[in-house]
């Protein structure tokens, strides 16, 4: 198995977190890999989204 790191960007609707941003973001990131480091780096009031920049890891066959 090969471990790899990936930089990704996600947009998350502001209403989806319902006060629990950590769970909402970690769940969204988990679809792309295992979260390693992330932060909300922009909030767009017009589109009502939060931009999350992150590094996730994946395991794949060699």
């Amino acid at each position, binding site marked *: 198995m090969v471990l790899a790191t990936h930089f990704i960007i996600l947009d998350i609707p502001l209403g989806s977190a319902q006060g629990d941003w950590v769970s909402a*973001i970690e769940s969204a990131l988990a679809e792309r890999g295992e979260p390693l480091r992330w932060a909300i*780096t922009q909030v767009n009031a017009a589109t009502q989204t939060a931009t999350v920049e992150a590094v996730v890891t994946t395991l794949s066959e060699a």
Partner: protein
Amino acid sequence: MSHAAAGRRPYCVVLVVPTGIGAAIGGYAGDALPVARAMASVVDTLITHPNVMNGAQLYWPMANAHYVEGYGLDQFAAGRWGLRPVHRNRIGLVLDAAIEDDLRWRHLQAADAARATLGLDLTDYVVTDAPLGVELRSAASGATWGTIQRPDSLLRAAERAIAAGANAIAVVARFPEDTDAEALQVLQDYRQGQGVDPLAGAEAVISHLVVRQLRVPCAHAPALSPLPLDTSISPKAAAEELGYTFLPCVLAGLSRAPQFVVGPALGLFGGSSGGDSGGDSGGNSGATLWADQVDAIVVPASACGGSALLSLGRRALAIAVEANPTALAVSPESLGIPAVRVSSYLEAVGLLAAHRAGVHPQALTAQMPQINELPAQGYLQVNPLGR
């Protein structure tokens, strides 16, 4: 009078200055350390992270400050991990195979100096079985990030150090030194105390990976060629101009960094402390810290999208400091975090002192309106300071 003598529990504060976002205070060479020193003098326990504490050759040990790597800090804030203070750690030094011989010797001498001059405990060092392949990246937001091509090699080396008796890991990775005009300008800006640290995001990824996978304290120092003398260096970046390595602060910080205790997750919205019943293999763990013991968290007002604040911001006093601008514009209000804005770290230190003393900050001003009756009906807005 100590908190114990006063019959109170310790007043505990988390100080976060995220790395790689160009924070005007804390975005350079350990230049938020004075903030940590001042804050530590008015609280019982300060929890902060390497970006705040690391000044390359410079560091300032504080008996009541805990040096917690960012991934571990986020897990602590989320209530998943506890922090168990230690008297000492044995540090394993992991060196990237990509480091040239001369530069490797400089780092080994820094390690030997820490052993001989500071009395720190290190195992023998480990060289990774492949170059780590650090790659730097800047996002559109202005934040810097990074990836490594051989995370497997990093983890194998750290595991070897742990097998040799280490319970904390210092990593030195060879960082790229691009010579194109844009990269040189970014470096020049950084040395002038401007812009975003191009290395910081990748450094965080390296230490996060070790902490996530191996659950031991970890911090990173980049290996870089010495830079030519520049007489116009900013004082904020000057700590990184003093020698051949940035390793001494990392070794000093790790030498007493708290160990991670993985216990039952806290119910952060009403649960009690995970306490000392779960998962602590370290013997007497009566002093283990958990997230529900945090009284306040202090962050830059424009960088409120980090995991630690998002976890703690609703249950501890969140203090957003306006006079520490960053490359970001993520306010507490935009994320629904009920933070108290202060103009400066001076004001933050004063607010913490008042909060710890149980003094409402309004009582320190000339404005003291009469008490009112709560409305019989309708929405009640709860102020984080009570009024």
